């Protein structure tokens, strides 16, 4: 396999093409990367350097005081800081895992089975994508209140599990899985669930690794302050946004907070992306 890939890469790449695409990537990458570099630089700047005029892009006297400040600030809060971290990690892990499982479970029959109302269900779900959070904010609250889920992890986890976007994405990817693969498994006596876990899911691995990235990113940044009142159930983004609410005196700590909030999603992204390898969707098929 490896040898074949190398051959293909050689065939399709010319020196000019490589240079052009590399140059484009560098230019665009600079656009994308600069804000991150600035955020990191800012978090390392001492307070007097943050307010210097004209502003400097790079840090002159790097210090970890800002990060130290966060821990000092957070040690004064009502509940231990680790509690906020636990809440967000808990919500993110269960929400992401649940969403991945439930959405792909539903996407599989929508893509590969035939049953009455299939298209109706699919289009209802797509329409639900269109609603913005402002319009549904009050009804959403009422539904949560009716279910007695207010001030409970459930009010954040369950809506995340049944988000329509993941289903839509998984369905489109699963349609690309050849029917002959599934039929072959059926003839060999595999149950539907087994087909799902051993045939369909491995063939759409790039799709669900991508889905993990999106879902994790959403939940990691979830403040959830509409539904959660108890201090010991509040999320990390909420706690950290309180630091920046203090304004000018906390400018340094705010910059450090931004870096902390970005690091974890970026790590997850890199982990997921490096696991995506070429899958063998139709390579096992001889037509």
């Amino acid at each position, binding site marked *: 396999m490896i040898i074949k890939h190398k051959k293909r890469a050689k065939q399709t790449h010319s020196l000019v093409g490589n240079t052009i695409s590399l140059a484009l990537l560098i230019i665009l990458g600079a656009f994308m990367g600069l804000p991150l570099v600035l955020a990191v630089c800012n978090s390392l700047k001492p307070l007097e350097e943050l307010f210097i005029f004209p502003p400097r892009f790079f840090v002159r006297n790097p210090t970890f005081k800002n990060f130290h400040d966060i821990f000092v600030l957070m040690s004064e809060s009502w509940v231990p800081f680790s509690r906020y971290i636990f809440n967000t990690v808990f919500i993110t892990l269960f929400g992401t895992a649940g969403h991945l499982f439930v959405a792909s*479970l*539903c996407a599989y029959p929508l893509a590969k*089975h035939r049953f009455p109302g299939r298209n109706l269900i699919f289009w209802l779900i797509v329409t639900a*994508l269109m*609603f913005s959070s402002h319009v549904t904010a009050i009804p959403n609250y009422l539904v949560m209140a009716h279910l007695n889920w207010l001030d409970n992890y459930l009010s954040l986890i369950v809506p995340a599990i049944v988000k329509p976007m993941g289903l839509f994405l998984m369905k489109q*990817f699963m349609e690309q899985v050849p029917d002959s693969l599934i039929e072959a498994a059926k003839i060999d006596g595999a149950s539907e669930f087994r087909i799902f876990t051993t045939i369909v899911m491995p063939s759409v691995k790039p799709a669900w690794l991508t889905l993990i990235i999106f879902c994790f990113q959403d939940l990691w940044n979830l403040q959830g302050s509409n539904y959660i009142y108890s201090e010991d159930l509040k999320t990390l983004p909420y706690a950290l946004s309180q630091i920046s609410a203090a304004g000018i005196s906390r400018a340094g700590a*705010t910059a450090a907070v931004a870096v902390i909030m970005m690091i974890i999603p970026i790590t997850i992204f890199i982990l997921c992306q490096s696991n995506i390898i070429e899958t063998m969707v139709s390579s096992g098929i001889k037509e």
Partner: protein
Amino acid sequence: MKNKGYFKRVHGKWRLSLLGREAIAGLAFALPFLIGFFGLFLPMIVKSVSYSFSNMTVESTGYVLTRAAKNGFEHYIRALTIDPDFNRMLLQAIIDMFTKVPLVLIFSFFMANLLNQKFHGRAVARSILFLPVILTSGVVLGLESSDLLVTTLSPAEMSGTDFSTIINVSGFLLKYTDLPDSAITFLASAVNGIYSIIIASGVQILIFLAGLQSISPSLYEASSMEGATAWENFWKITFPMISPLILVNSVYTIIDSFTSETNEIMKDIKNTIFGEVKYGLGSAMAWIYFICIGVILLIVGSIISKHVFYNDER
């Protein structure tokens, strides 16, 4: 498949046919999602419709809905004929969408193709291009916009150019070169346009990338054996294989463009609902807006899905 029925007659009794069993298995798989979806999303939507036809008054015991005037259509009529800004903003949102969506799609498809090639530092390049998604979401955006360095200086420094929060950084850098002001303004607005497109295409790039990665290499091998060029490979293999995801991405981009927080009409709806506490009027505006999105989505979706290639049709 010839047999269309979900049931069949065996020895005088009705039994589930193969198709029927498959249908039941399918429904069983979809059930967890459907319960959640119909339990959580549908009640919200139904409630929102009923609000748009009523006047809501809040009392100590809860809220009371009374039917709005003109057969309940008062809010709709008000939004469309009396409100001076609503129609203009609606049109503007639609025009913005039509200019932005093709650019985002083309750009993200192009970037995904670049990033899918094998070169050193590919993982780094991918991560960098995904950064906007992280930078523009939730707390980080809030923090960036509350970043004092940016907010206190930008009105004075950058008056006349419309920078979004993050682009301020690039704007600062330009300001300290020796270019004349007009050149900076031009560059800034051009860059701002590019930037808003790049920023809006992080998710799409990833979706395309995942799509490109699930195309089997054996297809390319086979066609290269037959003597196809890279150009032919692209149009005959890559493009059809990725077409279902073009549909996904156009739907996603349209919705994203319509429901983004920076959208003028979304701000107006938010302000009507939470600022002026006119929930009925706000819901009516949202529903008019929603119907417009729905119609556009239906048209675009049906045009694209006609050209979508599925691996094997059933």
